[in-house]
């Protein structure tokens, strides 16, 4: 084995080129190592649907989907997501048709100020995809990472439960 060890990808310059599939579109970007995915979305790409609440991973307002899994974009370095598929609240609708979860939040009046709503909806979409919730208590437990300062929790749970039940009916 005389082959040289594989060279690590090293960033010495302040910016590195990455590619993200952002709401379905391949996007080439140059990012500094310390740029979080949240700041990249909001400050660089003007995609302000994703909210900065606490910026410390405690409130869930910045929840987005990375490769289909819900994560906190405030604790995610953009440079580490090179090649990943990112879905934000802006990418959930199809044309003018809202995602079922967005529609359910409207029908159930599942918000007051709306600041936590994009994170709640992204989190709820992932919750349905994970398929671990069966009861209202399960929804409450598995949505506990998304805080709502207005206290719209009962309506948020009702909206998610409706989408969950309809998804179950369709899969029968």
């Amino acid at each position, binding site marked *: 084995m005389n082959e040289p060890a594989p060279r690590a990808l090293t960033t010495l310059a302040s910016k*590195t080129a990455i590619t993200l599939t952002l709401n379905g579109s391949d996007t080439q970007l140059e990012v500094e190592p310390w740029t979080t995915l949240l700041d990249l979305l909001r400050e660089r790409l003007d995609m302000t649907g994703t909210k900065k609440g606490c910026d410390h991973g405690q409130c869930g307002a910045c929840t987005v989907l990375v490769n289909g899994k819900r994560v906190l974009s405030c*604790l995610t370095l953009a440079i*580490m997501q090179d090649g990943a598929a990112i879905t934000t609240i802006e990418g959930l609708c199809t044309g003018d048709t809202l995602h079922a979860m967005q529609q359910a939040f409207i029908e159930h009046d599942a918000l007051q100020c709306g600041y936590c709503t994009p994170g709640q909806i992204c*989190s709820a979409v992932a919750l349905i995809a994970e398929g671990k919730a069966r009861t209202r208590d399960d929804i409450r437990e598995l949505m506990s*990472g998304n805080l709502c300062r207005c206290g719209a929790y009962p309506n948020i749970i009702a909206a998610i439960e409706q989408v969950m039940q309809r998804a179950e009916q369709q899969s029968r």
Partner: protein
Amino acid sequence: MINFSYVRTTDVSEAVREIALDPSARFIAGGTNIIDLMKENVARPTRLIDITRLPLNRIEDTPDGGLRLGALCTNADTAYDDQVQRRYPLLSKAILAGASAQLRNMATNGGNLLQRTRCYYFYDTGTPCNKREPGSGCPAISGLNRLHAVLGASEHCIAVHPSDMCVALAALQAIVRVQGPQGERAIPYAEFQRLPGDTPQIDNNLGREEIITAIDLPAQGYPDHYAYLKVRDRTSYAFALVSVAAALEMDGDTIRDARIALGGVAHKPWRDNDAEALLIGQAATDQNFRCVADAYMRGARGYAHNTFKIELAKLAIVRALVQAVRMERNGDKQLHRTTTEPR
């Protein structure tokens, strides 16, 4: 967050070489703790080594009948893994009692072991802290210490380790596998994390140039009699005031083997082999459980705001043991659902 350089590795040996090259470099995987600490200016690495693409994300059988959890498996993938749920339900329950769905999707098993305390003073760079700045003092001892340790603390530090997963790993007597410049070694769980003593800045016995590659679970996973009871200020998404991982092997009403580990009470998951041994060969009665609970909390010392933890821990031990015994008697494995929530 200070500026830093970034390197991505795809090979464990290369990662070890990279960390050895730069004393102020740090590994990053899930990032859920270190990025937060960097935003608070508590961690100030000048270089981050991205290890997320190392081939350490599998869960596989070990030759001795146990299960090997890759260090880079996420907490969520571990907790929901079929083998973990079936053979080590205590570990699954403990993981799911911690953090939130989003954090569990990000956080890795290796990172869970290495997370730092959430002591307010450790996080606040405007205050002294012996863990953050050795020799500067510990304001928690005479300050806000409701969440702090009642066992194994020192005059230098009364912080607690915040993990739920680690409490189960301690009870299961997991083995932490690590790799460093001198090769690989295996660290028994009881020897992995440390008490603060006069070096509270050192959380564990992992060398600075070592990386965790896997966590091995022994064959015995106590799937028939276990409970993870977590008592906290709100029902979900809060650190433990006290938590108990209890695992029993029963022969009728007689206890053949017992494991108890406590979270939220010390600088590491707390086990007491002498106290555990009091249960061996004994009947599963509330009286015997109370006896063990008293023995477990021998030597406990409370501070101004956390003395309540001592009695709380005793009651939690008794309740967890009762729950661990009852699950089979009732023929209802679902009973354990209630063990994660104080009601």
